[in-house]
């Protein structure tokens, strides 16, 4: 029953060419900002507290009126200078109607003292903040940021900006704004929730055309149900037709393959326990046939999923559903598969104007799809053998295999994250 190595490679290739399954979490975010809470009283400025938090700082306002702020590196060199608007001044406009004519009048509120906050993007190279008078450069205050950085990284030691964790080859995460960078020259970013898959040239065009022609509308998609129990076929078909799908059916693996010769469906629901050709064997034949190799397959079976099934077939199937299944769960699973295809189609369209290295793209697309499918399968394993399943002794071997499955997912995710963070990849998702 074990698939050959060649078959595994075939499946990987299919994943790349089919580009199904592009759903992922947000890209890892390590952006941080520093908030320095201060008070000005007359000419005296006092730093009250300093915080470092995850998140984004505001842009630095381009103005000339205020104090001079300076960011200083550990060696005493100046990293950046900017203007800190005077917090004691607020101004407004009141519309006054006199003699029937509205007139705008200025109002200025100049206080002697005020609390204020200076918020800056975190830069691991910056260890001190200073404020000077703009007129004569008198130093008003200096805030040592190092203690807060030490405290922060004691709590978050694995943050890539932690001086104790990054080496010379580590990605520098200095997110200080670049002065004078035109907006038009900045690199566009992908949506924070999704994945941006970018393919240049003819591959892009052909995949887009393929997806467009094949899946013009979700509700009219054609699903092939393969099960040796005709009663089950009837029930599943009814569920799907009510959800707006067209259905066809086959009661054996051989019949399934014959059906595929006459018309290629948009998705196959495939039973496992069938004779003489079981579902796994049928799957292998489907994936070996050029016309049908990219058709997504969901296993629909009464047989419990085993960790070894995930290991062997996790890269060739889209999902695994255990019978009996509710109409909602079934349509949700199918919708999820089609949603992935829709997403990749949209992302490809959005990425047409960008240029991302093809090797990175292929790897990222493959990883993302595999991670998504394997997470769904891992969920099922946990539901089947986990603490809430009532299965008191699934066996240490199965538990170990499940943990290995999870570890594999982590490794894949880490690799995906590595690609995302590689400045040379151009991949932002």
């Amino acid at each position, binding site marked *: 029953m074990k698939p050959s190595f060649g078959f595994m490679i075939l499946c990987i290739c299919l994943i790349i060419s089919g580009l199904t399954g592009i759903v*992922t*979490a*947000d890209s*890892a975010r390590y952006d941080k*900002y520093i908030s320095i809470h201060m008070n000005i009283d007359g000419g005296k400025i006092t730093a009250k507290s300093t915080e*470092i*938090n995850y998140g984004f*700082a*505001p842009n630095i*306002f*381009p*103005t*000339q009126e205020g104090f001079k702020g300076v960011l200083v590196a550990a060696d005493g060199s100046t*990293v950046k*200078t*900017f*203007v*800190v*608007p*005077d*917090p004691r001044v*607020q*101004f407004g*406009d009141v*519309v006054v109607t006199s003699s029937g004519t*509205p007139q*705008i*009048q*200025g109002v*200025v509120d100049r206080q002697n003292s005020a609390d*204020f906050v*200076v*918020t*800056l*993007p975190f830069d691991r190279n910056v260890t001190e903040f200073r404020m000077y008078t703009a007129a004569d450069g008198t130093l008003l205050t200096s805030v040592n940021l190092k203690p807060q950085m030490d405290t922060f*990284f004691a*709590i*978050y*030691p*694995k*943050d890539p900006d932690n001086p104790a964790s990054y080496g010379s080859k580590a990605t520098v995460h200095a*997110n200080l*704004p*670049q*002065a*004078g*960078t035109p*907006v038009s020259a*900045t690199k566009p*970013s992908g949506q924070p*929730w999704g994945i941006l898959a970018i393919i240049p040239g003819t591959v892009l065009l052909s995949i887009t055309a393929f997806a467009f022609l094949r899946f013009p509308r979700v509700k009219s998609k054609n699903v092939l149900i393969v099960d040796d129990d005709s009663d089950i076929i009837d029930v599943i078909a009814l569920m799907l037709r009510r959800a707006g799908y067209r259905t066809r059916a086959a009661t054996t693996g051989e019949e399934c393959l014959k059906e595929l010769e006459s018309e290629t469906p948009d998705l196959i629901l495939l039973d496992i326990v069938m004779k003489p050709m079981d579902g796994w064997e049928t799957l292998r034949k489907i994936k070996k046939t050029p016309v049908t190799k990219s058709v997504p397959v969901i296993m629909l079976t009464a047989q419990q999923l085993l960790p070894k099934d995930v290991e062997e077939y996790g890269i060739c199937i889209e999902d695994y559903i255990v019978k009996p299944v509710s109409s909602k769960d079934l349509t949700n699973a199918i919708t999820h598969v089609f949603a992935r295809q829709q997403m990749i189609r949209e992302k490809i369209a959005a990425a047409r104007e960008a240029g991302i290295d093809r090797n990175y793209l292929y790897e990222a697309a493959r990883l993302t799809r595999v991670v998504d499918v394997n*997470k*769904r399968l891992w*969920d099922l394993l*946990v539901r089947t053998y*986990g603490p809430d399943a009532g299965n008191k002794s699934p066996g240490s071997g199965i538990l170990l295999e499940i*943990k290995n499955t*999870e570890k594999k997912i982590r490794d894949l995710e*880490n690799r995906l*994250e590595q690609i995302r963070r590689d400045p040379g990849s151009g991949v932002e998702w």
Partner: protein
Amino acid sequence: MTTPSERIPGSPTVQLAPAKNTNTSTYGYDLFLSTFDITTGEPLGNVSVYLDGGYAGSTSAAGTIGIQNPGGEGRAGHTVRVSKSGYVDITQSVELPSTVPVKIGLQPQALVPIREAGPHSTKIDIVFVPSSTTYNCAGKEKIMTTLYVTNKNAFVSDVNKIVNESLFTLDSITDKTDPLPADYRDRFNIYYYYDPSRFADGFDGFAGTVPENVWESVPFADVIIILYPTYPTPDIDPSCDPNGAVSTAASRIWMKVPADQPVLFMHESGHALFGLVDTYCGDTAYWQNDPDPNVWSSRASCVKDANNNSWEPSACRQIQQDDPTKCTKQFWRLDPDPDIMHEENTGTFGEASTRRIAYVLNFINAGGQIA
């Protein structure tokens, strides 16, 4: 067991969700974590999980993740941060290996994007916040108003209206000889922040006040705009007209404006978003921006800029009232009237103001010099 913590650096909003002791095994993981939407109780998938600040993976569709070998040998206390777009980040302390599953509920953000065009560092991020107060012209006093407090839709509708009627009409009210970038609308990220328990007060202090925890929730905001409802009885006193104000204090810039005054909105936005200076003569703040001022501290510098930009030098004129004895400033202006930075209810942005607006749009985040 999870250990509550009062305030963990790195977490904009810390919400502690102690692990529920279910007396079940953790399935062999050092940390078995599940995430859910705190408002619905539904599992939350694709939540990014960070252990001790390092990315550890994301939760499955069932909202779970198992983590082994967390590292940090000899260290029992660890930090788990969970993050997902549209939700408030949560950071929580946890001791590993954890003997119970850890469950963390995520709170949907009160921040809602109206138009999100790109990363914060390349866009002007504007956040609208509703005011729970307005002004009673009859009693000449601040009053509470329930309009936005009880009717979120009214607030959202007013935000959309004023954005569409003013900010997104910039191309029609700026100078055409050297126009703004055609995609100027895409230079903004626009959000509203609506939390039924947190409202701004448009009539507290000079430019109104924004609750501290709102600032902490939107640290990236370049400008927070306090929108307050129209005065309930404006006709009682003809001199009781709505007002706008700006505070450009340090890193926090905010302004207050009425919901029904699009020109006044643009005037205050001229200050808050683009650093434009008032061109009328009165008790207001004057300075000369560099580059691209709309007000100069000398006639010579105004004429020089006019010549350099092929503008009409003779348009440079001192800021003063019709009767100079009533008000004259040692600053000069160039843009013709009606000038939005001069008028209340009409006008456009002239050549100088348009140049300044274009500068800010083209060089977002340029407010500093790299050494």
